[in-house]
């Protein structure tokens, strides 16, 4: 029974916030965010302390495994930080107020519903649950992207996201339908067993459709076109959650489908995945160079990062899965740390161009340092955690024989260093021509940046986390249908 308790806690928090919101006034609604934080912290604590890393409930339709345990931790951490980052904007503590960001109770509760969807996604063992929970994870994101009522850009972001998201869902449903037709079962294990052996042509069609659907969620080129506009138009705290939550859910979905259903068919796609990875990295990087809006810039950065994730699918699962999970952890921490600074800066100054960050190292050295650290980690500079994560992924592709791809990835890493350093240059080197008024500080954002910076700095040096993930994945792979 205990494996479902974290989900129940998050769900109960979501409902409690939704209902409490009805009886609160504008003054007391500031307690909603701390309530969401408390619920998530409690769920995290139960998860870490009490939840076993294996087990099954409801006749095996809800299961827990070691990799899923890590995924759920990551989802909850992302949501926790997202709530901390949203607080100032929603409670009106920002110096430059964002218009049209109301409905706090609804905001936090559907954010939590999205987390519940992601958590059920990794526990799903049949196609129906997999699809419904993926929808539950992404539908709140569509709504959140359009949250700023009086901002046409936010509306545009929501509309583009929902239309292209629906297209991706249609691909996935079509693929799932064919899989069901081929095997007459919705149970992932049964499907994998019945599919093993000879592969019908329709199997490849289904696989391509599901791959395309997963590509949308992971922003893989050529399925990336929604990302830039949605990232730019959505309210910044939502963009922060979107950039890590959607990607984590996409990766969890890809793991479920690739390793549980397609299993031994994965090596046949090596070439295709390698091409996608090269395209994704290169396009994301090249377009990121010319961006001026920092959110758009982070969107293309996120696209290029998705390309690095794909490298993990090339090698043996025993190496690829832990490397991808570890990089996801690193990516979540680094990306959220960058967004913490972006949100804080936007709250304080109302500006969001890269050039606006000029002189930040003088006006707020700590924030500038945190952002620099995170950007360096995303670029992959040793000894930060991003370097170690990328190193694992590159070595997998290299072992699998894709030396050309590794060269492309290395060149891309260098290009990315250039554009991440553009931001750092604005903060540290560019001369300050006017006296900028020093931006104020924020407790919640400062706290989250501090919480994030520590793992960004030390995850690469401390081997324990990677070892933990590695051990977890070995156990996870042992539980796979085909081993």
């Amino acid at each position: 029974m205990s494996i479902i308790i974290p989900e129940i806690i998050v769900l109960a928090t979501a409902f409690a916030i939704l209902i409490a919101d009805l009886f609160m006034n504008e003054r007391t609604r500031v307690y909603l965010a701390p309530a969401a934080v408390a619920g998530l912290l409690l769920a995290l604590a139960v998860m870490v302390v009490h939840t076993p890393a294996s087990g099954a409930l409801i006749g095996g339709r809800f299961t827990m495994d070691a990799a899923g345990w890590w995924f759920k931790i990551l989802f909850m951490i992302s949501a926790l930080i997202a709530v901390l980052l949203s607080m100032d904007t929603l409670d009106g503590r920002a110096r430059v107020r964002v218009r049209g960001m109301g409905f706090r109770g609804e905001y936090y509760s559907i954010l939590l519903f999205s987390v519940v969807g992601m958590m059920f996604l990794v526990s799903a063992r049949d196609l129906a649950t997999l699809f419904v929970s993926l929808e539950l994870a992404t539908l709140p994101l569509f709504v959140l992207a359009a949250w700023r009522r009086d901002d046409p850009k936010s509306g545009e972001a929501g509309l583009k996201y929902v239309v292209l998201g629906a297209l991706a869902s249609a691909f996935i449903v079509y693929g799932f339908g064919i899989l069901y037709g081929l095997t007459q079962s919705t149970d992932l294990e049964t499907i994998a067993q019945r599919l093993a052996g000879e592969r019908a042509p329709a199997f490849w069609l289904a696989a391509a459709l599901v791959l395309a659907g997963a590509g949308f969620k992971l922003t893989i080129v050529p399925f990336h076109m929604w990302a830039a506009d949605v990232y730019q138009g959505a309210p910044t705290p939502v963009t922060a959650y979107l950039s890590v939550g959607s990607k984590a859910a996409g990766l969890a979905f890809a793991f479920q489908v690739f390793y549980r259903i397609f299993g031994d068919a994965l090596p046949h796609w090596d070439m295709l995945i390698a091409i996608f990875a090269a395209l994704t990295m290169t396009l994301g990087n090249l377009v990121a160079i010319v961006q001026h809006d920092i959110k758009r810039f982070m969107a293309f950065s996120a696209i290029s990062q998705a390309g690095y994730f794909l490298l993990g699918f090339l090698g043996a699962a025993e190496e690829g899965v832990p490397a991808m999970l570890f990089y996801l952890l690193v990516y979540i921490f680094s990306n959220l740390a960058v967004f913490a600074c972006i949100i804080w800066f936007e709250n304080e100054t109302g500006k969001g161009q890269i050039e606006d960050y000029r002189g930040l190292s003088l006006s707020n050295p700590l924030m500038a340092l945190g952002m620099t650290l995170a950007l360096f980690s995303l670029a992959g500079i040793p000894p930060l955690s991003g370097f170690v994560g990328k190193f694992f992924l590159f070595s997998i592709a290299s072992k699998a024989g894709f030396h050309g791809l590794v060269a492309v990835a290395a060149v891309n890493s260098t290009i990315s260093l250039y554009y991440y350093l553009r931001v750092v240059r604005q903060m540290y080197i560019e001369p300050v021509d006017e006296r900028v008024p020093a931006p104020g500080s924020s407790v919640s954002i400062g706290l989250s940046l501090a919480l994030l910076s520590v793992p960004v700095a030390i995850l690469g040096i401390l081997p324990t986390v990677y070892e933990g993930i590695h051990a977890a994945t070995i156990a996870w792979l042992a539980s796979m249908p085909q081993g």
Partner: protein
Amino acid sequence: MISSAVYTVMFYGLSAAVILLAVLAVNLRQLLRAALALMGMLSLSAGLYVLLHAEFLAGVQVLVYIGGIVVLIVFAIMLTRSSELLEDHPRPLAQVLGALLSMFFLFVAALALRDTRFPVQVQTGPPVDDVRQIGLLLLDRGATGYLVPFELLSLLLLVAIIGGTVIARKVAPPKQPFTTGGDARGETITESARTQRDIVPGEGAP
């Protein structure tokens, strides 16, 4: 029982009509006509379900899609002034590329599905359409049940309702500022109502 020849003719006739109506629903410029084409397409697919002995599914299709969703769409069209779609002219190159890509996908999908022998029609006969059985399966906590997705669907619908009300709400509710200002007074209901009225149709983002 319908004889096999009649069955085949009905199946292909319905399928052709469904495809035609679907193309019309996408291409018609008058939104209301497009909605009607959609309605026709959905009811004819309900006919397809009946042919496939899925009567329950056909009933749900009529109740939910035609009775609920299309009617809602028609209401939305009639209550707003956007009776005609804002014309969007993609570049010819994009149109050609899109058409080629769709044709390619259709071709590949048709080829793959033609060459695959699905076990369904070979092993079992037509599925037994038993509403009682469906209901029991949806709430079954065992290994063959669908309790988890069923419950998750209710959450999904709840999220959709919350999201819909938040996004579609025209005016701020009483006492809730349109702009969250913490302790500060935000826009009140009258102010935002006035702003809504001032918006001239046809202006703003498409």
